[in-house]
């Protein structure tokens, strides 16, 4: 509607931050370096959770090309020689080239048969379970990352950020969190933010949300500046570039151009998030959602619908890796989805809702190693309900191991509050 010109640095942003300070929240973003703990301490550890919505087909993300049953089950969508070989059994989809480079450097690993406790094959129920951390649907109305923040906040300063205009369940709950998406710069010279904070002072929903939004926006300007300094090509994300990542796009040459723009926007998103996380007092915990993984028809193999989505994912991860720079060694990124897809290709060149899928672990904090969890194989007798890849690992055990070993979340809290009634899901230890 209107072009807000960025106001002169200094005065106006201070005004915004001072207004946000009335809620006592801006501190988490303007904390000076003096708060930062000794190098290598828990305070420096960073954790990013990437949700791939729609049911990502793990069997074509990290394809078990060495499994004797894979090619026959998958038929026209089986990955073949073009896949990027990890070991004798597994190979990554070629769209994941940056992830593959990290894997070769010992900084990325696959978890090939992991699932939440939910078995209903409903996107929405399964996403709720994935994000709430409960052992069944409707088991919790807040997210496990929010309860992680809540648990850690008792012992140290910690803050969390969701990327996107809406808040994913995994970060919703009583612990405060920020959210951010690429957009216009706040016109800090207007009085409206201050007047609204006054109008919202008794509003439990809008008051804290506005204060955090303004504080994050101020921080975004800082982060953008530092990103721009890292490399002239890595300019600020524009709304126009971001809308290109969504899938209203034609096929063919123009489609390829859109796809390249989408990948570039996805990479910038990763870079921007990294910029936030490198700020003094910036978030240590972040959540990002990507959608479009519901590949019922014409899924493709090394190219096609799934590969396009994976290229976006790869670009976000690459942006994060590049942008975090020296902080990458303190970082763990987990990529997970609500469920996998049927082992067999369906009648329309796609796959239907299944059970176990692949999770990806990335980060300089990871220990090198092979696959995480066991591989159940794809023999008919090994499939879950003669249909889906069978899970060998409870997703919560994976999360719990990382949250304990990497972020120092209390074991008892993990078993009871962060993941309610989850003592039976043993933490996967030794990953970092």
């Amino acid at each position, binding site marked *: 509607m209107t072009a*807000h010109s960025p106001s002169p640095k200094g005065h106006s942003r201070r005004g915004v931050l001072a207004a946000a300070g009335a809620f006592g929240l801006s501190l988490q973003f303007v904390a000076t370096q003096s708060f930062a703990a000794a190098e290598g301490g828990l305070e420096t550890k960073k954790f990013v959770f990437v949700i791939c919505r729609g049911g990502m087909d793990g069997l074509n993300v990290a394809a078990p090309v060495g499994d004797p049953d894979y090619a026959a089950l998958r038929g026209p969508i089986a990955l073949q020689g073009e896949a990027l070989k990890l070991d004798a059994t597994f190979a990554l989809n070629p769209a994941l080239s940056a992830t593959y480079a990290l894997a070769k450097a010992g900084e990325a690993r696959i978890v090939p048969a992991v699932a939440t406790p939910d078995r209903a*094959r409903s996107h*929405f129920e399964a996403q709720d379970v994935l994000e709430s951390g409960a052992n069944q649907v409707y088991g919790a109305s807040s997210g496990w990352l929010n309860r992680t923040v809540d648990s850690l906040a008792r012992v140290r300063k910690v803050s969390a950020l969701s990327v996107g205009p809406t808040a994913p369940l995994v970060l919703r709950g009583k612990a405060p969190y920020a959210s951010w998406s690429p957009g216009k710069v706040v016109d800090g010279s207007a009085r409206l933010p201050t007047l609204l904070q006054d109008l919202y002072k008794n509003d439990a929903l*809008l008051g*804290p949300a506005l204060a955090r939004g303004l504080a994050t926006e101020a921080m975004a300007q800082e982060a953008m500046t530092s990103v721009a300094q890292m490399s002239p090509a890595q300019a600020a994300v524009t709304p126009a570039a971001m809308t290109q990542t969504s899938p209203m796009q034609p096929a063919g040459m123009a489609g390829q151009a859109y796809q390249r723009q989408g990948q570039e926007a996805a990479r910038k998103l990763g870079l921007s998030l990294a910029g936030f996380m490198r700020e003094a007092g910036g978030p240590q915990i972040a959540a990002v959602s990507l959608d479009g993984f519901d590949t019922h028809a014409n899924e493709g193999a090394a190219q096609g619908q799934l590969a396009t989505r994976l290229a976006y994912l790869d670009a976000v991860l690459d942006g994060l890796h590049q942008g975090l720079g020296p902080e990458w060694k303190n970082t763990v990124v987990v990529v997970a989805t609500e469920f996998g897809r049927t082992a067999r290709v*369906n009648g329309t060149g796609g796959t239907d809702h299944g059970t176990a899928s692949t999770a990806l672990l990335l980060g300089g904090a990871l220990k090198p190693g092979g696959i995480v969890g066991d591989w159940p194989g794809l023999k008919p007798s090994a499939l879950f309900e003669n249909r889906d890849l069978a899970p060998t690992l409870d997703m919560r055990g994976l999360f719990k191991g990382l949250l304990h070993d990497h972020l120092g979340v209390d074991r008892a809290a993990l078993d009871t509050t962060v993941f309610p009634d989850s003592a039976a899901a043993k933490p996967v230890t030794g990953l970092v």
Partner: protein
Amino acid sequence: MAATDRELKAAIAATRFGLGARPGEIAEASRDPQGWLKAQIRREGGDLPVSGGETAAQRIADLREFQQQKRMERPAVAATGTGQASPEQRDPVKLAQKLLRDDTQVDFLSRVQLATATPAGFRERWTLFWTNHFTVAAKNLQTATVVGPYEAEAIRPHVFGRFIQLLGAVETHPAMMIYLDQVQSVGPNSLLAQRAGQVRRGVGARLQPVVQRNLGLNENLAREIMELHTVGVNGGYSQADVTEFARAMTGFSIGGFRGPDEQAGVPVFRDLAHEPGQRLVMGVRYDQRGKDQAAAILSDLAEKPQTARFVCTKLARHFVADDPPPALVARLERAWKGSDGDLSKVAEALIEAPEAWAPQPAKFKTPYEFIVSSYRAAGGQPQAFGQVGPILTALGQKPFDPGSPKGWSEDADAWAAPDGIVKRMQFAQGFAAQAVQGRDPKALAADALGARLTPATATAIARSESRPEGFALLLMSPEFQRR
């Protein structure tokens, strides 16, 4: 009814049941708020946006023609003139793509224009509830071009009819069948599949590339009908029920897919693709032949008490509270069951329900509701897609694209994220500067909120240092952000 109570009810009628008050609307509703709402219910359904007027079938045929021509890869005919010409002017393929995308933008703009200008805000909100319940998302160019016609053809005419009519129109509409992959679903033992097998084994090599690809069952639509459109995820069905229902649905498709001499985009039932045999769905055996089989299952699903419970809960959640009062849900269910799923009776029950008139607003507006009600408060209408499309995308509600068949969220927590509030504020600043046009923001506030205007907001607006600032404060006030 006392005058003050009636004034509050009028404000609630226009903002909670409707899409926000245009100047003068609350005054009009205050004579008889419930009667004003009931008068908006009509047998012929929701209003039709004034758009291009093409049908879904025409849009699908246009797109297919475009794709076929593109495939022929004729060298681009150079347009007259060079230099100044945009890429679209030089390249006919790009031009055609732009035209197709423009259609969708015109559809969306005309829908927003209807919402901002209609005197029957409740009728349009009721209609929008059903478009969201039966979501077809614009996930690619093909679905994008048919969402608008889909709403006009399958949803709007039926929103005050019986649920089964609406359900039948929706599930067999080309847009829904394309969106949830029904058009390609073929019975594994159907004649079509058997013939394809023979061709593959035989010598018909020339036909092979056409028929060999992707010939089989797709359970996507069957699952979402059960999970999202009728009985709900806890409605008591199993994976086997989904697969059986998907088999029964085979044959429903559209012309131009796997069939010669058919008009592209027109809904068809293809006996050749239908899986033969009887089906067992949720404990009931269906031995009908052809299209009657799926119709019988759909009819049974529509009549199940789980469906009444699931849909009435969603209605109560949409109109009244994220966590709706059980008494309200029960009231709507009684109206549903007592009328055989007559949606006009359910709408009347909602209007008559005391739980729906609680003075405290519990619903936080979605971005679409916020933008539409802002235009209504100003008494204006957007004139170009660019005025509403980009801001809705930035606020997380991309035009026609909820991202999944579940539709847009009803949860305040999803929309009231910090980033969303800041972006609403930025919109309000820009919008108010253009829309206030010398008018008194105090009067605009009284018109937009009536008795719902709080003293704190009224004071803040009275103290504002400019008209745009006062109007922006109104749009961002806690009571305007809720309904």
